[in-house]
């Protein structure tokens, strides 16, 4: 099996587990939130990675996350075309289309809302747990 096999992990559906600042019902309404990396999956991991599979089915997508801050940086990555989203950064609101990256420096208040479309969002936090 080898000493390093523990560094290779399979993702799992976060389902209705708590996620601070977030409504997991609102998240789940858009599609499954999949945990790809955290310090419980890999001891010592200093990155937290979620992949959210998103499909906006109704006219209006739900709000699912309050404005909040982290003590480390974060990135939202939208790898492919097909999603429109609105991001709050400090006191500014911006709308953008995928593909795109949003970098959030430590301490900057932010939130995210998906407006329309279908695709994935990769959320990367620069520490081993979300909080």
């Amino acid at each position, binding site marked *: 099996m*080898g*000493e*390093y*096999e523990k*560094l*290779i*992990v*399979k*993702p799992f559906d976060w389902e209705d587990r708590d996620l601070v600042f977030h409504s997991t019902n609102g998240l789940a309404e858009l599609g499954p939130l*999949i945990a*790809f*990396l955290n310090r419980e*999956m*890999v001891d*010592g*991991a*200093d*990155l937290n*990675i979620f*992949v959210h599979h998103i499909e906006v089915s109704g006219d209006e997508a739900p709000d699912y996350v309050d404005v909040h801050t982290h003590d480390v*940086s974060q*990135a939202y*990555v939208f*790898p*492919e075309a097909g999603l429109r989203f609105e*991001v709050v*950064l*400090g006191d*500014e609101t*911006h709308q*953008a289309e995928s*593909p*795109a*990256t*949003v*970098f*959030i*420096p430590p301490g*900057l208040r932010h939130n995210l809302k998906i407006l329309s479309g279908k695709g*994935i969002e*990769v959320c*990367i936090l*620069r520490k081993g747990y979300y909080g």
Partner: protein
Amino acid sequence: MGNHGKYIVKPFDWGDRPLIHHDRAVMNSLGPLMAFLNTDMVGEADLNIFIHHIDVEHPPGPEYVGIHAHDVSQAYVFPSPGITFQVTLGDEVHTVESPATVFIPPRLKHTVKIVEGSGIEVSIVRNEKYEQSLAEDS
């Protein structure tokens, strides 16, 4: 647009730019490598993110990156099913099917090879520019 619009960036094709330890021509034969975040895109960024769009036409896929190490941690994320890859971690070689994550602690020598399939690979280095993260003896 305000002061914070600079934090929202569009990815671009890395094209034939060099990437240390990587054979860019061979990488491009699998599909385009897209830069999603680095310090040239966002000055304050302390994450380096690439996405490689992969389609192996003739399995097994070619080798394109020599074994190397970084001073900081890295993760390979394969978000969706459809890719089989081989990752070397230290002196161990593992063959894995996506979806999967590989976490690489600082200074662990590693390389990756795509065996077959199609999909995307997200590479995240917990540092600024990719080259700045390379360990001195790599």
